[in-house]
């Protein structure tokens, strides 16, 4: 072994032995029935984890998968914090909230394992994007299996990493099987490294059971990434000597194939290659056994979280910025002249501009934003911002899953991304990253990750048929870890955007296409004036507060977005109290409660199908808290959004239908 220090080689050997013995110890704990949950183990794959992580610095990062124990030990997590996590203990690396599939430790450069296949790739690309934007020297190695190649997240994440030369090492551990399915059954070309070329960067297939070959390939990749020539795809050929998960007896692995790979065991091969002595082996083995025996004994009695702490770590506490801000609940602005009349698109543009100017961590990422001569997003919100912030208007491919993952990864690293979709309907494509990653990472990490991500999405039926029109609020309001707001005017739009950027949690803002006040080619037919007097001074509208738009005595009408405007049209004649719910998650029960207790009647108005809507949640919430209040809903029927104007008009609640709904509930209770 020329060129390598003996201590270095023995260090790699010991790390591999530690991983093997850790996995075996865990396996037997499962066989004994002493460990909860399930496990996905990596016996046989030790060289990939150790080879790659040895080439990284301690302040470089990795993302991992559901099969992450080896990656964790290779990146420097201790066996104790890992074992404790597997036992569900408070002392575990994720305080027992993650478990075997989500081990990680942010202070050691490992994001908790992402157990959705390929879900870690866009996230890792986003981390790498943040390092590039902030001129940091770090690289990210993203581990994934051969199964990930078939996922859209792989394509979208890898493509963006390629376009922007991100410092990302894509580490494919090709162990020949995605669960029980052989790679040859799911890809025509099973040479995975070939894919790199089609994206325009370098890929390489490496013997993944040769730890030095992996280390050298990773070292080269790290150097390329640090020099700005990333990404690199490393395909590491290896073999899983254990089941996909704990109950899998591996009957799909042919016996001769298993035996052939056993002959190429990474630990035995390395031992032979470095001619490890009996004394060296004995010393290392004894040390590892002692460490693990102690870890198991301590983990068995480690303290578990208290059931009363169930809801801890769902949301981050707000991280307020130093500048003093006015918090104003309602657009009550003095007539002193320090305001301008702005539409929602203009107010949002102004808010984004101010935030980007004040905070270098704020950037925009989305489709058709920041293109000179382009539209400024679908509804002109970011028009012209590329002139002032050419580096921070990240114009993406049409790849919602991918760039919401990038935005989440960058937010996790401390950036303040604003990600937007052209139409809310496209959020379904991005929903894995929003719901499984952005919303849950804080919890899964035991409160160590914050995802200060702002997302914007236009909604509403506007002559575009079924797939550019849905009201998406219903799909995201019940997601723990996510906040949802829906402003109805320009003042709120700007104030809520600023509050969202200061929040420290993922916040999704729905905007209505008929309320933007977009001009020129992007103007909407049937638009409603949602402009406000917007102060010149900085202000925020706090998330979680509803606004009373009109005080009334007979009935409370609860609405948001466009429906607030329609409700206001009939409020006087009905003497209705109109509440702009505005914050859909969390809901302001205090304001709502005060009103419904006074009027005794609640009419919830929602654009979108009546069944399973946000209105159902508000109705249930009122019924549980104030059972004497009569509640009804005015919403769209349970049909997709139609195209033809006659049907679209019948679909969307209007002033007449709101009025009818109110009259009905009042008559019923008096009749």
């Amino acid at each position, binding site marked *: 072994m020329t060129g390598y220090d003996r201590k270095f080689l023995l260090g790699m050997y010991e790390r591999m032995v530690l991983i093997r013995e850790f996995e*075996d110890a865990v396996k*037997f704990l*499962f*066989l*004994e029935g002493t460990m909860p949950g399930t496990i996905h183990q990596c016996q046989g794959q030790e060289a990939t984890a150790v080879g790659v992580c040895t080439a990284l610095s301690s302040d470089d990062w990795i993302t991992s998968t559901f099969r992450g124990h080896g990656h964790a030990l290779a990146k420097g997590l201790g066996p104790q914090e890992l074992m404790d996590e597997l036992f569900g203990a408070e002392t575990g690396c994720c305080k027992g909230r993650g478990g075997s599939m989500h081990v990680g430790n942010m202070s050691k450069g490992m994001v908790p394992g992402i157990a959705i296949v390929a879900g870690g790739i866009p996230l890792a690309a986003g981390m790498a994007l943040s390092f590039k934007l902030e001129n940091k020297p770090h690289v990210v190695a993203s581990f994934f299996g051969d199964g990930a190649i078939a996922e859209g997240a792989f394509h979208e994440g890898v493509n963006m990493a390629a376009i922007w030369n991100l410092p990302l090492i894509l580490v494919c551990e090709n162990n020949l099987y995605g669960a029980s399915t052989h790679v040859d059954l799911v890809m025509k070309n099973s040479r995975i490294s070939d894919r790199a070329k089609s994206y325009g960067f370098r890929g390489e297939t490496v013997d993944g059971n040769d730890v030095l070959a992996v280390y050298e390939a990773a070292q080269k990749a790290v150097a390329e990434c640090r020099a700005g020539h990333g990404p690199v795809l490393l395909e590491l050929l290896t073999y899983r000597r254990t089941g996909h998960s704990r*109950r899998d*007896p591996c*009957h799909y692995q042919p016996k001769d194939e298993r035996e052939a790979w056993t002959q190429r065991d990474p630990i035995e091969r390395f031992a032979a290659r470095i001619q490890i002595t009996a004394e060296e082996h004995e010393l290392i083995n004894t040390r590892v056994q002692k460490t693990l025996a102690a870890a198991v004994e301590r983990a068995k009695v480690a303290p578990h979280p208290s059931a009363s702490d169930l809801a801890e770590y769902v949301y981050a506490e707000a991280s307020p910025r130093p500048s003093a801000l006015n918090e104003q609940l309602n657009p009550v602005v003095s007539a002193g002249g320090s305001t301008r009349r702005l539409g929602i698109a203009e107010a949002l543009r102004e808010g984004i501009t101010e935030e980007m100017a004040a905070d270098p961590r704020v950037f925009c990422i989305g489709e058709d934003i920041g293109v000179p001569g382009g539209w400024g997003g679908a509804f002109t919100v970011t028009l012209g911002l590329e002139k002032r912030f050419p580096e921070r208007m990240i114009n993406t491919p049409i790849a919602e899953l991918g760039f919401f993952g990038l935005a989440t990864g960058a937010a996790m690293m401390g950036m303040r991304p604003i990600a937007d979709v052209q139409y809310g309907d496209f959020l379904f494509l991005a929903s894995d990253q929003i719901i499984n990653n952005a919303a849950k990472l804080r919890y899964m990490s035991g409160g160590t990750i914050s995802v200060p991500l702002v997302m914007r999405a236009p909604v509403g039926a506007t002559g575009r048929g079924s797939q550019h029109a849905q009201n998406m609020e219903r799909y995201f309001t019940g997601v723990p870890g996510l906040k949802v707001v829906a402003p109805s005017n320009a003042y709120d739009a700007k104030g809520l955007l600023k509050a969202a950027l200061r929040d420290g949690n993922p916040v999704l803002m729905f905007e209505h296409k008929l309320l933007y006040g977009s001009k020129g080619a992007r103007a909407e037919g049937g638009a409603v004036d949602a402009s406000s007097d917007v102060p010149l001074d900085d202000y925020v509208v706090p998330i979680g507060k509803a606004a009373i738009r009109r005080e009334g005595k007979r009935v409370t009408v609860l609405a948001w977005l466009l429906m607030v405007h329609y409700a206001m049209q009939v409020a006087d004649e009905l003497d209705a109290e109109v509440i702009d719910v505005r914050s859909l998650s969390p809901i302001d029960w205090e304001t709502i409660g005060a009103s419904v207790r006074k009027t005794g009647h609640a009419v919830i108005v929602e654009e979108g199908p009546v069944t399973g809507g946000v209105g159902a949640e508000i109705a249930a919430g009122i019924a549980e808290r104030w059972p004497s209040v009569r509640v009804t809903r005015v919403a769209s029927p349970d049909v997709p959004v139609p195209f033809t104007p006659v049907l679209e008009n019948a679909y969307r609640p209007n002033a007449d239908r709101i009025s009818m709904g109110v009259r009905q509930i009042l008559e019923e209770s008096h009749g």
Partner: protein
Amino acid sequence: MDVNMKMPDLATNEGVELGVTRWLANVGDPVKRGQALLEIETDKAVQEVECIANGTLTTIHVQSGQKVAVGTVIATIKVS
């Protein structure tokens, strides 16, 4: 020291009993951690179960053909 080996939780469905199909070692045999010690039948498949400790197999508590609940002690190994 004696180590008690329990019927592993390898069933697909909760609450089913698992059957010992055959033992692959005899009482008195030296055994090693990781070696196939017995074969069991789950509701899904017949599969081998690995020995959990190094030592001598001193007692077989559940004979071939018997079914027991997950967690039942099936063998005792005297650790050397």
